Each structure stands twice: as structure tokens, then as C-alpha cells.
């Protein structure tokens, strides 16, 4: 089984960290993983994105031209990446910010109102972690428990208070995705 995912948004939204956390967790779960951030001069003022591939076998290419999962944190990213998703794939969007129309009916769309959820949690900057929780739910590859453990290895869990907060954020995200998926199915 190979899962390819792209995370995309503005530079400031913690997009690379999302991918890093995801990759790290998968690695700790014993998977083959590649994590590929796109960066460079073009980033200034543009969008940031990264690609994570998780597989049980050796990974041929860390690039995903047809990702199975796409996480979209802002409008420009929707335009750029929505069409690349593999048929049957899943699109997770930050529904607080992203309002564009999604013209594909062969993908599952999981809207997560990140900004609202983060605000409720009491920390606006936890939006990206919430989204990772949602992604874990949607993919089924990562367990929330493993994610929680991996948090400590990133900047997201150095201090106990922050760690606790982000653990909750993961759960909030997972729950939100569960609800959205249930809705999608019933629709």
C-alpha cells in the first residue's frame, strides 16, 4: 500500500510542519516514508507545499503527480492542486478560508473549519495540527496515538502545555473529519 499526500497553503500556516509530523509518525510506525518540502526563492510571497509518501515498500519517487490525499489550506492551493488528485482520492480543505468551487465528483471532500476549531481550542496556531488529526482519520494509515507520541520530537511538543494542547488538537481534527466523512457518505 502506498499513500501519496500533498500539503499546501501559505508560508505562514505551518504547512511544512504538517507534512513533517505526518512523515515522522509514519516512520515511527515502521513505514517507508519520503518527505519532500518544496521551497526556495519562489516561496517568498507564494504558496508553500510539501509531499509525503508513505508505503510498505521502497518508494520509487518522492514526487506525487497524482496524490491520493491533498490538504489545502488556502485558495491559491486549491486552484493549483485540486486537479492533480488521483480519482478516488481525498481532498481535505480548510473550510474557514477556502471557498472555491470543487469541480470534481470523483474525489471525497473533507471540509474542516480549522480557524473556528482552533479558536475554540484557544490557540489559533494549532490549525495545522488539527488538520493532521483530520488527515489521520481520513487516511487510516496513521493512528492518533502514534501522532501524539511523535509530537514531542517536533517543535510542537517541546513544552508540556503546548504538547497537551496539540494532543487535543489532533483529536479535534480527527473528530471533525469523522463527522465530515459521515456526512459525505450519507449525502
Amino acid at each position, binding site marked *: 500500500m502506498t499513500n501519496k499526500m500533498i500539503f499546501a*497553503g*501559505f508560508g*505562514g*500556516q505551518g504547512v511544512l510542519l504538517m507534512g513533517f509530523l505526518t512523515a515522522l509518525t509514519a516512520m515511527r510506525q515502521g513505514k517507508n516514508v519520503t518527505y519532500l518540502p518544496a521551497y526556495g526563492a519562489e516561496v517568498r*510571497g507564494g504558496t508553500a507545499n510539501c509531499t509525503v509518501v508513505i508505503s510498505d515498500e521502497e518508494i520509487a519517487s518522492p514526487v506525487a503527480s497524482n496524490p491520493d490525499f491533498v490538504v489545502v489550506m*488556502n*485558495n*491559491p492551493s486549491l486552484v493549483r492542486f485540486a486537479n492533480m488528485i488521483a480519482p478516488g482520492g481525498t481532498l481535505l480543505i480548510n473550510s474557514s*478560508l477556502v471557498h472555491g468551487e470543487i469541480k470534481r465528483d470523483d474525489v471525497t471532500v473533507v471540509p474542516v473549519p480549522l480557524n473556528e476549531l482552533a479558536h475554540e481550542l484557544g490557540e489559533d496556531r494549532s490549525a495545522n495540527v488539527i488538520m493532521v488529526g483530520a488527515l489521520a482519520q481520513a487516511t487510516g494509515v496513521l493512528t492518533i496515538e502514534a501522532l501524539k507520541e511523535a509530537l514531542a520530537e517536533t517543535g510542537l511538543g517541546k513544552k508540556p502545555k503546548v504538547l497537551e494542547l496539540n494532543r487535543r488538537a489532533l483529536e479535534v481534527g480527527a473528530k471533525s473529519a469523522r463527522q465530515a466523512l459521515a456526512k459525505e457518505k450519507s449525502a
Partner: protein
Amino acid sequence: MAKGKITIDREKCKGCELCVSVCPKQCIAISSGLNDKGYYPAEFSQGEEGDCCTACTLCALTCPDIAIEVYRG
């Protein structure tokens, strides 16, 4: 009547708040909505009296993104 006014190009603005910080009359504030690039752009208002701006051009001089044009008259 107002001595001056400015226009802020919402899409050029990157929300750096420098104009806000230099405006001696506090006529500029950051808006609560994002622009297409994902920034919270600055907004101009003439204030309660309607004549906040003196066309001092400090904001425009400072704006790194040339988002501000200043009018006097």
C-alpha cells in the same frame, strides 16, 4: 474638509502594518478579512471627523509594496 486621502491596494498589501505604525494620525488599520494572497491588508479610514489624513505621505513612503497612493487637495 479632509486635506488628504490615501488609497490602499488591497491585493498589493501584505499586511506588514508598517503604515499603521508610521501614520501620525492613526488613520490606517488592519482589516479583518484576508486578501487573495492570504494577507490581512491595511485599510484606510478618515476617522470619526472624516478628515483624518493630512497627506503627509509617511505611510506611502514606508509601504514596501507601493500599495498606497496619496492624494492632496
